[in-house]
């Protein structure tokens, strides 16, 4: 595995991938030391879109930081909203009405599917297949339209509030979500027939790009990267938050630890998210969507708090330190792609360049979330 013939002259050259390379989906740069077509060393260079969200958190009130959360992982912004809402609710002891929890779960699972669909299209595009992107974007468009009606935006959502959500959903949204679940169920077999069982895709992904379980542990990789390596770890089951324990869903785990395993985990997760949405729509209670007694100026008690959620890319954690005033003393944002990308330096060693790019795509990176 990952072995290559010794180079008789020991000559290497440096190849600069990025910062604008399309295969990196954003401004990531990777410095590659190459031996012919083989990667000898890979060093990701970060910081091209670093905005210092953590400092911004320290000079605005707790509530004013909410829009920032949607601008880190712009593909699964609602999970980031969710985590920040949860940690403040934990610190300040705010109860969330049941209906709001249901809306949170439904919208964030829809958002997870849209994130996986974009990854799916872009990943196949990396590998040289163009048309799946068009199909995936067609489906993703349905979700964006749906979410736009309740959240008011299409990408960088700021929909959750401390103690609930900003807007109630109506029958149109519910009907639209039901229609989407039915539609997506019909589309999945087509995706599998068109893409998963494609012999070129299988040859590009199977047994290539190994990220084994022990490597995941040493680097703190989570999400589909860990689940593709046989680690049964999903924050929704492992450290249940919101009302996830009420739903019946499975955590897809594959043991091959190759690019194909990570691909399969995400494809299966789309189906599991559909199951959650369907159950949540069926059990939707009536009632308010905002807690009644949320103070205007929020001052969580002194101390530090941790809360994590499962985003489309893995475990996103916030460590918040409150000094008892209305602005956070410190907000640490532990983003999943960051930890998943550290793996790349070791995992890509000895790979062919096109395979290394397939590995990079299979990690599903969102650069603004890494750079923060």
């Amino acid at each position, binding site marked *: 595995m990952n072995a290559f013939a010794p180079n008789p002259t020991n000559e290497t050259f440096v190849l600069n991938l990025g910062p604008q390379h399309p295969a990196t989906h954003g401004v990531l740069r990777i410095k590659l030391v190459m031996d012919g077509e083989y990667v000898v060393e890979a060093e990701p260079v970060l910081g091209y879109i670093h905005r210092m969200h953590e400092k911004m958190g320290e000079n605005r009130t707790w509530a004013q930081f909410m829009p920032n959360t949607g601008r880190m992982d712009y593909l699964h912004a609602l999970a980031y909203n969710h985590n920040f809402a949860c940690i403040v609710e*934990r610190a300040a002891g705010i109860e969330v009405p049941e209906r709001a929890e249901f809306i949170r779960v439904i919208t964030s699972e829809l958002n997870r599917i849209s994130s996986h669909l974009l990854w799916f299209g872009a990943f196949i595009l990396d590998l040289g297949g163009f048309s799946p992107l068009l199909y995936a974007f067609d489906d993703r468009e349905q979700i964006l339209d749906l979410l736009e009606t309740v959240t008011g935006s299409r990408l960088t959502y700021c929909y959750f509030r401390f103690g609930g959500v900003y807007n109630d959903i109506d029958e149109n949204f519910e009907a639209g979500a039901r229609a989407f679940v039915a539609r997506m169920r019909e589309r999945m077999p087509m995706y599998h027939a068109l893409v998963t069982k494609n012999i070129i895709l299988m040859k590009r992904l199977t047994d290539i790009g190994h990220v084994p379980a022990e490597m995941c*542990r040493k680097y703190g990789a989570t999400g589909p990267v860990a689940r593709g390596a046989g680690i049964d770890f999903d924050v929704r089951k492992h450290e249940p938050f919101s009302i996830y324990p009420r739903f019946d869903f499975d955590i897809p785990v594959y043991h091959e630890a190759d690019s194909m395993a990570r691909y399969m985990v995400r494809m299966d997760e789309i189906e599991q998210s559909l199951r959650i949405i369907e159950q949540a729509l069926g059990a939707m209670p009536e009632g308010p969507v905002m807690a009644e007694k949320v103070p205007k100026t929020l001052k969580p008690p002194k101390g530090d*708090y941790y*809360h994590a959620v499962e985003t489309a890319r893995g475990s996103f954690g916030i460590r918040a330190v409150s000094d008892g005033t209305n602005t956070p003393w410190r907000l*640490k944002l*532990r983003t999943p792609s960051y*930890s998943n990308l550290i793996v790349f330096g070791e995992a890509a060693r000895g790979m062919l360049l096109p395979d290394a790019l397939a590995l990079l795509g299979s990690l599903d990176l969102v650069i603004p979330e890494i750079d923060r």
Partner: protein
Amino acid sequence: MDTDAITRPLEAVPTTAVKTVDYKARGFHLEVSVSPQHLRDVVTVLDRTGFFIETITGVDWLGEKAALRKEAEAAAAAKAKAAAAKAAKAAEEASAEVSTEESPAPKAEKAPAPVAAPEAPKQPEVPQTDDLEAVYDFNRYDTLFRVAVRVRVPRDTPEIPTISEIYPAAHWHEREARDFFGFTFAGHPYMVPLLLPEDADFHPLRKDFTA
């Protein structure tokens, strides 16, 4: 899971203080404070027992010592005031017994005498420099158990040994913590800025940083 199996080897490391935390309210289970010299021993224990690393970060406690001093002073002052009031009351009672014509001046002279005495030794207890705290977050894949390891170092000499040979992920986390806070991770093999520009000589998350 068996908390004892984790805490026992951690408590065996010198200078550690292991504290169980209310998970429901705070979001993690165990808090381990350790001196920089023994950090690597604690991390080795966590590595051997199968934890994975979540992140490494810092907290700048600028102003903490001043606040403590102020609190101590306020407490001393309150104590002194109470003592003075008591003394004044006692003097008043005494003077009332002796003679009613005496002027209030000697009472005032008597009062400040006990004030100065307890205040003087309070001062040196709180050191002058504030702390920079490094927080290491660990978690497990198999069961839910979060551990936060805390190391405190003075702000002007924030030196901590690297843990990058134990957890290679620390390569990046430590570079980031050094970017933002100016920690010195002794023994780190490749200490160049990660998220800040390569020539950055400022540490934006220090509380006295101004752009």
